[in-house]
Each structure stands twice: as C-alpha cells, then as structure tokens.
C-alpha cells in the first residue's frame, strides 16, 4: 500500500474532509460557549477586576470563620489549639468552647430531621395516591392523566424556598410552613417518578386481577403495587436524603429548623458559631446519606 494507491488517496481525502468538518464543528461550539460566557459575564458584572477585589475578602472571611477574637482589640487567634483542645467550656480554643451552644444546635438539628421525616411521609403518601391517575397505562381517561400530570409538574417546579416563604404568611412563622413546602415539592417529584415506574409495570398481573373480577382499586393494589415496591421504597429514601438537605435551608425564610439559627448567626457575624453550625449540618447530611444508602441497599437486596 503506497500513497499512490487510489484507495489510499480516497481514504485520505475522506478522512481529511471528516476531520475538517469535525474541527469546524468543535470550533463553532467553542466560540458559542465563549460568546455566551462573555455576554453572561458582562450582564452579571462578573469582571476580573471585581473578582480580584473579592477573592482576598473570601479568604479573610473563611479565616474569620475558624478563629476567635478574645476581646475587641486583641488579634484573632485560631479557633482550636492542641494544648486546650479538651479544656472545659470556659477555656478558649477548646472544642467545648467552640460548640458552647451545642445543646441548642442539637435540638434544632433534631427538629430539622423530624421536619424532613414528616414532610417525606406526607409527600410520599400524596405522591403514591397521585401516581396511579398520572400513569398513562393504568388510567384510561386521558383528561385525568393530563390534569394529574400538570398538577405534579406544577408542584415540583415552584422552588421549595419560595413556596415556604409564601406559606409562612398564612400558616405563621415556624416549622409547619417548611414541612408543607417540602411535602408539596416531594409530592411533585416523587409522583412523577412513581408514575413512570407504574407505566413500566408489567400489565399481565393487572389483567389477571381484572379477569378475576377485581375493581380498579384491587387491580392497582394486587397487580401494580407488589411490582413497584422496591422502586417506591428506594426512591422514597433517596427523597428523604434530599429533604434533609432542604430542611436545613428552609429556615432562612422563617420556616423552622437549623436554617433559622444559621441565618441569625450569619446576620450578627458571630463567626465561630457559623462554622460550628455549618460543620454540624455537613455531618448530619453525610450521616443521613450513609445511613439511608445502607438501608436502601438492604431493602432492595431483600425485596428483589
């Protein structure tokens, strides 16, 4: 095979053309991405000058989060130091001094988790009920399918925090508004997942139940639910993880949980408490993630 071979030349020609086309396409995409980037940066005032100005302040702020100021004039020092680490609550630079309001945080964290539990259960039940009319294969009536689908879509598209903010007006400041907001959002997103699961269900058991004279309800209960149970449970737990995360922030608009406290300490610039709360939130979120992952694997393993 030499370069004079016509087949070779044809190959080279075609390969070259393909390569050029690919290269043009890549360049075009790159240019568009860059152009949108520049337009967005101009629009949001995201200029290099501003960034350069802001970056040292970010470092400064994060440094303050992990330091204490013993008195007004004294220079700040590290929040923890080895020699004092296990000193009492009155000893600066000890863990106990940093987390001196641990009992308050713990109570609020527990409230946060309970909000997530209640909201998940309420949303789960509502989603479970709404998923059947929203599944095309299970409901004959097109209007019912359409209406329940739009309802679910509406529920999950409104941002949770906005919903909580609105619900705080009629239901008062406190966890109730947060629970309702998270529950509504959970209904929307789980309802969609559940209805998709139900559409993938094998219809033969349903026909079997119908043949035996079962009502629509009995068809769903004995034909569909047993097939969907592992999926329902695993999605439900996954949603619980997400809800724990959301309930930590829902307090910013006055809807209960640790977020309310975090907003307060950030507003008052009580730096060491900000870092303490953030670390606790991080810990609880990671702990719940790990726990629910374990339970999920167990449930799926046991049921399939």
């Amino acid at each position, binding site marked *: 095979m030499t370069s004079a071979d016509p087949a070779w030349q044809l190959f080279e020609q075609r390969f070259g053309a393909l390569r050029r086309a690919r290269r043009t396409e890549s360049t075009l995409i790159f240019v568009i991405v860059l152009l949108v980037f520049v337009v*967005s940066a101009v629009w*949001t005032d995201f200029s290099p000058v501003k960034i350069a100005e802001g970056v040292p*302040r970010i470092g400064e*702020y994060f440094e303050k989060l992990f330091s204490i100021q013993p008195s007004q004039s004294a220079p700040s020092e590290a929040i923890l130091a080895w020699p004092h680490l296990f000193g009492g609550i009155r000893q600066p630079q000890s863990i106990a001094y940093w987390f001196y309001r641990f009992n308050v945080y713990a109570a609020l964290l527990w409230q946060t988790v309970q909000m997530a539990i209640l909201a998940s259960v309420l949303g789960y039940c509502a989603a479970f009920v709404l998923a059947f009319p929203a599944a095309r294969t299970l409901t004959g009536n097109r209007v019912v399918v359409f209406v329940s689908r739009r309802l679910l879509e509406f529920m999950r598209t*409104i941002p949770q925090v906005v919903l909580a903010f609105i619900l705080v007006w*009629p239901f008062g400041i406190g966890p109730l508004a947060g629970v309702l907001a998270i529950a509504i959002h959970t209904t929307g997103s789980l309802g969609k997942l559940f209805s998709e699961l139900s559409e993938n269900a094998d219809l033969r058991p349903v026909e079997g139940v119908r043949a035996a004279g079962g009502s629509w309800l009995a068809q769903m209960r004995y034909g569909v639910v047993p097939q969907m149970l592992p999926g329902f449970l695993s999605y439900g737990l996954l949603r619980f993880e997400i809800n724990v995360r959301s309930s930590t922030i829902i307090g*910013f608009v006055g809807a209960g949980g640790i977020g309310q406290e975090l907003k307060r300490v950030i507003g008052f610039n009580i730096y060491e408490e900000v870092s303490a709360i*953030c670390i606790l939130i991080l810990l609880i979120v*990671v702990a719940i993630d790990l726990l629910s992952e374990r339970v999920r694997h167990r449930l799926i393993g046991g049921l399939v």
Partner: protein
Amino acid sequence: MSGAVAHLLPRPALGRRALHWFLGVGALAYLVYLLWLFDFDRIFTGLPKLWVIIRLMLDWGRFTEWDHAELLRSMVETVAMAYLGTLLATLIALPLGFLGARNIVPNAVFRFLTRRIFDGCRGLDQFIWALVFVRAVGLGPIAGILAIMVAETGVLAKLFAEAIDNIDLKQVDGIRSTGASRVAELRYGVLPQILPVLISQALYSIESNSREATILGLVGAGGIGLRLSERIQINAWDQVAYVIVLILITVASIDTLSRWLRLRLIGGPSQRG
C-alpha cells in the same frame, strides 16, 4: 377478594407478626406525635388566609403597571449566573475528577482526601454557600455565581471521577504503546471516553442550577429571587404569581433547549457505539 385467597398463604410466625404490628403502631404514633409537634391544627386556621392569598395572586388587573423591564433583566441575570457558575464548575471539576479517579491517581490517601473535599463542597447546600459568599464579596450576582460554582464543583468532580473510574483502559494502553506522553494519553485515551458523560452532565447541571439560582436572590445573591422576596415582603401577591410564572416558563424553556442540545451533541444512546 383478599379474604378468598389469604388462608391459602402460609402465615408468618406469631412473634414476627407481633413485631410487625408493634413497629407499625409505633411508626403511626410517632407520626401523630410529629403532627402534634408541628402544630398541624394551624392548617385549618391558615387555609382561609391561603385562599385569600391565592385569590389575590390570580388578580392580574394591574398587569401594565408592573416593572417588566426590571423583572426580565433579573430573569436573564439568573440564567446567566447559572451558566457562568456551571461552566466554571465544569472547568474546575474536570482536572479534580482526574485527581479523584482510581486508575489515574493510584495513591489511596491522596484520592481519599480529594474525594472528601468534593463531599465538603457538595454537603452544604448552594443556598448556604450563597449566604457565606454574600458576606464575603457583598450583595450581587457574583456571590451567587461563586456559590453555584463551589457547590457544583463538588457534584461534577465526583461524577467525573466515577466516569473516569469506569473507562476502558485498553484505549489508554493503545495510546501509550505509540509512545505518547502522559498528557496525550489523557487527551486521546481518556477524554473521548468521558466526553459524552461530561457534556450531558454539564447540560443537566445548567438546567438544575437555573432552577436553584432563582432562589439564591432571597439572600441577596442576585437574580430574580431578590425581586421575588421584595414582592413577597410587601405582599404584592399578583406580582409574586407573575414572577413564579416567569420562572416556570424560563425553566421549561431551558429544559427543552438543553434536551435538544443533548440529543444534538451526543446523539441517542445507540449512535456512539
């Protein structure tokens, strides 16, 4: 119909059934306790007020007097924040993903530390990052962009690291056997394999972040959220409803656009064999 066949099934042992009952009743009691704890009776006093708010929301009689220019500008700002944040996060997450992958960095301790950094960025919600960044760099969209960037870097870096973990090493070996450098190995052996994951994830992130960015403004990090919170605080419910509709339309159109782009760029699952 359950009664007809139930007696044919083997019954579980009595102890087991008692345990199940006990657990069921316990869970139910706990739920009732939670309902009591969170003042669920307030729902009934709140519902009439909610109805008033909904009625006010639906009255768009003064549509022409609203500040449309400001709202639309903020809406575009929100999308721009999401785009910038996600793009920067993708650029940062790609090298981090390489550092967190098992087959690129064999050192387990280093990899463990890198992955914990991803978890740290991911564990705190974007909203909390926004709050911190508003304090650090001041009010405005820059705080929002940085918040999206940090939180999304954690998410994307983890996904990229997993994608790189799962690549086919034969292609890398092939490149290496031609005597290519380490960088060329990554560029021609690894990158083409993870590019579809990368693009589809980045697009998906832009979608979800433009959803998230709508609320960042509630803490002063720019975008439509600020306008929304102003209007909620002065109880201008008609405009609140309008802003929500704007958000819904924007999110829906970004979803559609990104779905189209995804299909266009990576094709269906079967096209790239």
